[in-house]
């Protein structure tokens, strides 16, 4: 994977010439096999598949130029490993090692389709040849993810051939910093990390702030559980983030940038490091970029595994080599941030949008989306949904379209219950609001938030009290402990929720949680604490009857909370095989051959072993 030695680019003209040359080179390869090496596909063995394709291409003596290429996440992680063959954009899914030879022989050399590896629409039974034919992709609009799945994230040449760094060249050669900011303003770009703050206003404030040393930071500390948008961008198209930061730094007047990446994302760190080193080699980072007077460098810092570091002031504290504790923001970070200097921090996805805005114009970007939320948003659509993966949609699309059309609905014939958005600061939205249009303001009105883009679908078997408990426990563990409302308030709320899920809930618990929530919102130091009650408040708002069932009837309607339901054996379904009886650690099951077994409720410890082991699903939760 060593790139060819490349000379430093001295001007925008050099860059364009090089891009032309690369485009010519890539045309030489008449056939191309693109293998996804995102974390999802890699986990399912795509590295090996890539190597096998490389070997096959090398050993092939046919008179064609065949290239095997590793690419970033296609988004359809559910169906990985994903392999796409050009020409024809033939989309193969769930490819395994033994399939490589067949794909190579049939499709690459023979131009024939291997039908069994195509995606089959479960509703219609129709096979899809290209990604565009798959419902998962057809309703999407890919802007930020447009390079994912097409370009090799480890080769700067691929990015340049695809028009990469042309936005930087445009900004440096024909735009003033003010022009850049006004295009971003025209675009209406708002922060993708969760806050939704207007990006141009942030840049402008930082540009106007007093002081010569200014910093730009890319927040890649994607901490929300159930979210992996930023990981896929950093892994799949790292140069788009770097180019965005370069343009932002030029607009703000900064010479030094930092990318703060989560410790749990080793592949993102690897790809970003390689990208920075290649960009430096080519003079796209460093002194006098493309012959201009603009100089800029980027350093990478890995996080230490603290969720609170996603908060801007905590992240800056961490960058300074201190524990990641936030501070009150009487003085904004754009005036006094990292090392007390003006600092502009944006999220990965925000940065990755910038090159496209500069290249295609703010007006184009503003043409996508709703009145106050422009452009597209990447969501990680996960949980109880058929098509799990990464989706990019225009703002304003309804939740229903995302979940039913793109996601294919809830699997196993189960009923949809709620979708959780916005991570631990967000909330759960029930079925009656599925037709709401997704944008920053609409989701906030529903008591949830856009957040960074996690979208977790939950089916009827999910206990909403437990969901609230999960997020509260998460936040309680991740609270840095600096301010009392967050440190003590969360512990108290968790204590109450633990009681409810164990069947020890009392009348008045819900009101007490409400009081604590108000207190946190009004007095906590940072957003982690201020929004910490959202998961609880939104579940109380929409699923009050579940709380009541736990508290008043000592019953968990979703049958998830141990102790608030019991196990019985369905006499009709029981085949009297004796497996449950043998495995029961409490000797609570009785029965003999050909006689349906029974559970003695008095002896049963509710461990669930019988439910796990029964091959006929005859053990039921009541």
């Amino acid at each position: 994977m060593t790139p060819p030695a490349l000379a430093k680019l001295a001007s925008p003209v050099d860059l364009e010439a090089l891009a032309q040359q690369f485009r010519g080179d890539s045309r030489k390869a008449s056939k191309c096999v693109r293998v996804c090496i995102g974390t999802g596909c890699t986990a399912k063995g795509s590295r090996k598949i890539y190597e096998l394709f490389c070997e096959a291409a090398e050993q092939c003596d046919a008179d064609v130029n065949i290239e095997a290429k590793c690419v970033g996440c296609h988004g359809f992680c559910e169906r990985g490993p994903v392999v796409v063959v050009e020409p024809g954009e033939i989309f193969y899914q769930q490819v395994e090692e033994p399939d490589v030879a067949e794909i190579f022989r049939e499709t690459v050399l023979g131009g024939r389709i291997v039908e069994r590896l195509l995606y089959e629409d479960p509703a219609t039974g129709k096979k899809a040849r290209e990604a565009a034919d798959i419902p998962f992709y057809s309703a999407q609009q890919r802007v930020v993810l447009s390079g994912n799945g097409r370009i090799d994230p480890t080769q700067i040449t691929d990015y340049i051939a695809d028009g990469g760094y042309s936005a930087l060249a445009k900004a440096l050669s024909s735009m003033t910093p003010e022009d850049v900011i006004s295009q971003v303003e025209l675009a209406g770009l708002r922060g993708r990390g969760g806050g939704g703050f207007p990006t141009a206003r942030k840049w402008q404030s930082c540009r106007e702030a007093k002081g010569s040393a200014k910093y730009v930071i890319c927040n890649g500390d994607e901490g929300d559980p159930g979210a992996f948008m930023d990981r896929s961008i950093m892994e799949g198209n790292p140069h788009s983030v770097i180019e965005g930061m370069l343009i932002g730094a030029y607009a703000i007047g900064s010479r030094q940038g930092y990318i703060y990446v989560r410790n749990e994302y080793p592949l993102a760190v690897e790809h970003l490091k390689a990208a920075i080193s290649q960009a430096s080699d080519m003079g796209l980072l460093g002194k006098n970029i493309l012959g201009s007077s603009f100089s800029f460098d980027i350093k990478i810092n890995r996080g230490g595994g603290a969720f609170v570091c996603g908060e801007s002031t905590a992240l800056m504290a961490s960058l300074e080599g201190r524990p990641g504790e936030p501070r009150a923001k009487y003085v904004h970070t754009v005036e006094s941030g990292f090392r007390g200097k003006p600092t502009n921090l944006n999220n990965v996805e925000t940065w990755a949008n910038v090159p496209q805005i500069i290249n295609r114009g703010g007006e184009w970007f503003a043409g996508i989306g709703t009145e106050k939320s422009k452009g597209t948003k990447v969501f990680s659509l996960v949980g109880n949904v058929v098509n799990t993966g990464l989706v990019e949609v225009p703002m304003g699309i309804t939740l229903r379209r995302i979940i039913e059309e793109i996601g294919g609905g809830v699997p196993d014939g189960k009923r949809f219950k709620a979708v959780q958005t916005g991570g631990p600061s967000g909330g759960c939205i029930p079925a009656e609001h599925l037709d709401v249009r997704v944008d920053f303001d609409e989701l906030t009105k529903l008591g949830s938030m856009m957040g960074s883009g996690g979208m977790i679908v939950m089916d009827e078997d999910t206990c909403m009290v437990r969901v609230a408990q999960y997020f509260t426990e998460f936040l309680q563990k991740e609270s840095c402990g600096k301010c009392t409302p967050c440190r003590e308030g969360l512990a108290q709320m968790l204590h109450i929720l633990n009681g409810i899920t164990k069947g020890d809930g009392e009348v008045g618990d819900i009101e007490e949680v409400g009081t604590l929530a108000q207190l946190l919102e009004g007095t906590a130091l940072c957003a982690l604490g201020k929004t910490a009650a959202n998961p609880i408040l939104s579940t109380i708002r929409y699923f009050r009857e579940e709380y009541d069932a736990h508290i008043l009837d000592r019953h968990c309607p979703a049958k998830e909370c141990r102790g608030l339901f019991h196990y019985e054996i369905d006499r009709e379904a029981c085949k009297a095989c004796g497996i449950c009886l043998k495995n029961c650690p409490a000797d609570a099951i009785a029965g003999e051959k050909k006689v349906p077994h029974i559970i003695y409720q008095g002896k049963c410890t509710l461990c669930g072993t019988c439910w796990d082991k029964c091959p006929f699903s005859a053990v039921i939760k009541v």
Partner: protein
Amino acid sequence: MLENPKLVEQIVDRYSRDEGMLISMMQDIQAECGYLPADGLRCLSKRLQVPLSRVYAIATFYSSFRLAPGGAHEVTLCMGTVCYLKGAPDILEAVCKEFRVEPGGTTSDRLFSLQPVNCVGACALAPVMVVDGKYYDGVTPASAIEVLSDLPPAEESTEVIAKEDVA
């Protein structure tokens, strides 16, 4: 493996003695030693002229740092929302029970360290377990125990892992 003081010196130089890179330096020490040895931290504090209390504060604030040697294998269990909904707590419970290990702890035979983490960002594979960097998808309590039972014992694998870390 290098002696700790020498190693610390090398790492400090790697970051041009910039105390802002303290966390990165500590990550490098942990990558080399498998944990943060006390004398290494003392040495780091002296070299950078940063109070030892601050070094210790960092070591205990960030969950990825460890002050005692870990096991021969690194087992990460994702506790993200999706993994949680799909049964990660049961997997954690089963593994802890089977190998008599606490979350965040190491088995008594030093076979592996078990680290539950917030989210590894591979939600499409839920529930996910990562063993020495290899991702296992759709894990169940039984399959997790099976994978972990098949791990090669500490003596054989320590050297291999140390080599990989250095590379």
